[in-house]
């Protein structure tokens, strides 16, 4: 993951800190935003290689964030991991509609290391 830029958009401070530490240990450059609107702004400015977006956020849902970004020319093709605790079928459907390099993860099923592995995997497929 050397030199790859990853943007995490999630309102959970502790989670983002822990995940950032793990991803940085793998050599990635990690940016964190705790708010959907700020996240969109950052993404469009920096054009990171990968997005990790939490679905349930207070002011703007991760799905809306992704929708807006997918409307952008660059945003159309950036790989995105949607993180949620929503029951599967609805979440799946939501993510599937948001364009191909989108996957959804059920938070309770994944450890931080497993998430890091998934990020690595998705980045590799983009090469």
């Amino acid at each position, binding site marked *: 993951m050397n030199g790859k830029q990853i943007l995490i958009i999630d309102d959970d401070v502790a*989670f983002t800190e*822990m995940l950032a530490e793990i991803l940085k240990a793998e050599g990635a450059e990690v940016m964190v935003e705790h708010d959907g609107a700020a996240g969109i702004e950052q993404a469009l400015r920096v054009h990171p290689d990968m997005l990790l977006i939490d679905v*349930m956020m207070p002011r703007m849902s991760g799905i809306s964030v992704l929708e807006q970004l997918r409307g952008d020319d660059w945003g159309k093709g950036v790989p995105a991991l949607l993180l949620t*605790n*929503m*029951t599967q079928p609805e979440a799946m459907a939501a993510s599937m509609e948001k364009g191909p390099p989108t996957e959804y993860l059920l938070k*309770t*099923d994944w450890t*931080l*290391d497993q998430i890091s592995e998934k990020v690595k995997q998705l980045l590799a497929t983009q090469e």
Partner: protein
Amino acid sequence: MRLFASLLAFFLLIAGVFLVYENFASRIETIERDPIYAQETAQELLQYLLLAAIGAVLLLALLIYTVLSMQTSARRLAYKISRDISFTKEQFRRFYELSPVPYLLIDPKGVITRPNKASLRFFGEVEEELRGQNIFEYLSHPEKPEKITRYKDRTARRIPVEQKEVQVTKRSGEVRWALLSIENLDSQEEGQTGLVTVVDIHEQKELDRMKTEFLSLASHQLRSPLSNLKWYIDFLLKRRSSELSDEVQGYLQKMYRRNQDMIELVNTLLNLSRLEMGRLQVSKEQTDVAALVDSVVEELEPEAHDKNIKLDQSLTGDLTFSTDGKLVRIILQNLLSNALRYTPAGGSVFVRGSASSSLVRIEVQDTGAGIPPEEQSRIFSKLYRASNAKEIEANGNGIGLYMCKSLAEGLGGSITFTSKLNEGTSFVVELPR
């Protein structure tokens, strides 16, 4: 009957005439030889002729009477039929008017000509207002407005509309979900070519929406703290172990496992809720069940290893078939973790998969505590835990087997078991191909 009698009389008359003729024909010779017999013969002939005339008149009367009475019967029958039809029409009119289901008669353009009482209530209009309106003006669809246009078009082309979900805007402005059907009527009357049925399904739609929302919310609310705990504990164990004593690490590991139990419980509860609410979606596709078994066994390997239980499998035959892998996985996970939970150290758990042309059979066998015979009939009930199970493992939700049975049956299959106390239990799941 009477006709038959008349015909019979007619033929008798003919026969009579013939006999008389015969009688007199032979006499003519005698008269030619001896004219004295002529007067006698003439008198006799006159008598016969008189009888014949009377007979003919009677016959004619009988015939006229028969024809007349047939006409009367026919007329009476026609009258009865027309009265029956009027009565039936009246009945139907009443059924139509008094039906609790909203009915409306429309013309091909959708103009309402005949709304029944229930439809007036449904649309919140009086008859004079509703009649003459176009029904399609009251209908809408929130996501796909083009559907209404399509139904309008179909109606114009006399193609039926079958049970379509639409929204109806009442006079009051209230919008309600309804099921719309438009049937063709072979009617000569201009404004009555279509029968519209509107069934209010608003309550059901609302309930449905609430169920979905509830499940989404519940799952999120319950899972959030659990996923956080999972990460905190995992992070400490993996990234801060140098700062933690062995004792602390030991406790953290216990905490992690307990948290995982909770996560599993929440998953089970949510699946159960979805099942009970009828929200469980069974989506079948070609599934390699052998790979599923492999995956679940691999998942539970660490636990088996920790408990020093031998976990093995044997899979034969073609185990790829159309089913819902997600649900099969849940059944396997439940059966296997049960087996591990109730088998003491040194025991073994064996998974056997086999197939026939019509069935796929998966057996989970353990050398565990077994299920007491008197409790076996209740083992699949909700929240039931066998007495010896509670002794072995205080924590257990009693939902697992109930869920397995419901899921197996939901997939069209079955689940059975055999068990011997202190020897072991074997659960068998059979699913149709």
